[in-house]
């Protein structure tokens, strides 16, 4: 652990949250091997009801939130999420991350009608064989594509998301072409995080940094399709602007910190009280042991993602090993033994 005086960098200051991610449910109709929420088929009775989310959103809007991302699990697996979207959309850009298998034309039209801003659709492969093997549900690729098409017919902008892993890293270019053909505006190629079921299957699904960067470098997005990726030189330390609340009302800063931090129960204390948690403030400050110049130049932050930095080093200020400029020989296919929470307060 470094002494505070040795730290470098620093993130833009932000005194109040401007965007929030809601982990609406930890239930889903699929069984993805890469699931970070380790979803069950049925929602836990401890998950917050829509009425509580609506009260919480009002508090967040009052605090300055103007963008809401709703994810899961599969948010549409709980139909009351529509009440929350309808409440949020007049006051905040409201985005939905979904596997789209529960979206038909009627659902897509309803989402559009209640003010959803856009949808982010998870696909785990360009082909049914790859996707269905990773979701564990035969036919899910066809159902996700049908849902994506319904969203587009309803006029909703769609971004396709794919979590890169050993099962699909050779299929990313066809996935870009599929997404483009289906009318997606962008594809986000996401790094794998050692969380939930993905962590348990890490030995089989993870890739070396060289394999991942080679896969990214080989991509040729079709004209008009935007490619988003967070490897060098785009590895941001996003904590300065992140706020997230999980399905049980715990303030966790970012969904990718879901197993590492707990800033408090927002059904018992105000969100802003959790915002001032010492660790939350420290992560937002963004001072780190080492900064990658290339990523700092493009992202205006330092050290890269705090989730993967902590997962591999057990220190909040550590360099992110997913950044080739900061990796320093870490084999991303091998997780550190045991739980490392060395410098958590």
């Amino acid at each position, binding site marked *: 652990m470094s002494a505070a005086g040795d730290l470098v960098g620093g993130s833009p200051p*932000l005194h109040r949250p*401007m965007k929030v991610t809601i982990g609406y449910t930890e239930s889903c109709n699929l069984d993805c091997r890469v699931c970070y929420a380790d979803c069950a088929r049925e929602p836990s009775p401890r998950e917050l009801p829509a009425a509580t989310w609506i009260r919480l959103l009002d508090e967040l809007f009052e605090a300055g939130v*103007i*963008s809401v991302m709703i994810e899961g699990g599969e948010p549409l697996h709980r139909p009351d999420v529509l009440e929350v979207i309808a409440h949020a959309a*007049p*006051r905040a*850009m409201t985005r939905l991350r979904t596997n789209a298998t529960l979206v038909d034309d009627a659902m897509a039209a309803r989402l559009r009608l209640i*003010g*959803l801003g856009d949808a982010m659709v998870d696909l785990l492969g360009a082909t049914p064989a790859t996707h269905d093997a990773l979701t564990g549900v035969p036919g899910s690729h066809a159902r996700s594509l049908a849902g994506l098409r319904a969203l587009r017919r309803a006029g909703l902008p769609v971004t396709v998301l794919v979590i890169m892993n050993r099962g699909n890293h050779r299929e990313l270019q066809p996935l870009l072409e599929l997404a483009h053909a289906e009318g997606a505006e962008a594809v986000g190629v996401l790094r794998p995080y050692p969380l939930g079921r993905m962590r348990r299957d890490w030995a089989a699904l993870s890739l070396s940094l060289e394999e991942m960067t080679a896969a990214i470098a080989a991509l040729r997005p079709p004209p008009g399709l935007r490619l988003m990726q967070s490897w060098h030189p785009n590895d941001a330390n996003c904590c300065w602007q992140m706020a997230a609340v999980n399905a049980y009302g715990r303030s966790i800063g970012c969904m990718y910190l879901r197993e590492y931090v707990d800033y408090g129960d927002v059904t018992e204390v105000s969100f802003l009280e959790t915002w001032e948690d010492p660790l939350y403030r420290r992560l937002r400050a963004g001072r780190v042991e080492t900064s990658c110049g290339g990523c700092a130049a493009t992202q205006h932050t330092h050290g890269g993602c705090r989730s993967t930095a902590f997962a591999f080093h057990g220190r909040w200020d550590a360099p992110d090993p997913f950044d080739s400029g900061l990796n320093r020989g870490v084999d991303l296919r091998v997780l550190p033994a045991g739980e490392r929470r060395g410098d958590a307060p």
Partner: protein
Amino acid sequence: MPHERAPGLRLRPVPELGACLAYTPAAPRLHQLNATAWLILELADGRDDAALAEAFAARTAPALSASAARRTLEEGLASLRACGLLRRPPGGTTEGEP
């Protein structure tokens, strides 16, 4: 004819960054405004072209000359209209139109 903000427009100033986020729920989109666009948006609501030009020139002098202020305002207004953040009231006409 006065300028008017888009219906339901919500602003979220981010003074820490010298910027402002603007959300248009009628056509859901989040816009990031720089300080100049933010100023024009704040000044434009309810003002006609002449009053807006006068207010903008007063706020930007002496950093901007009169001609530079006029040009900056025209470009900013065009951009804000193109993004759907400002509009003319329904039924209104723009200058030069019958």
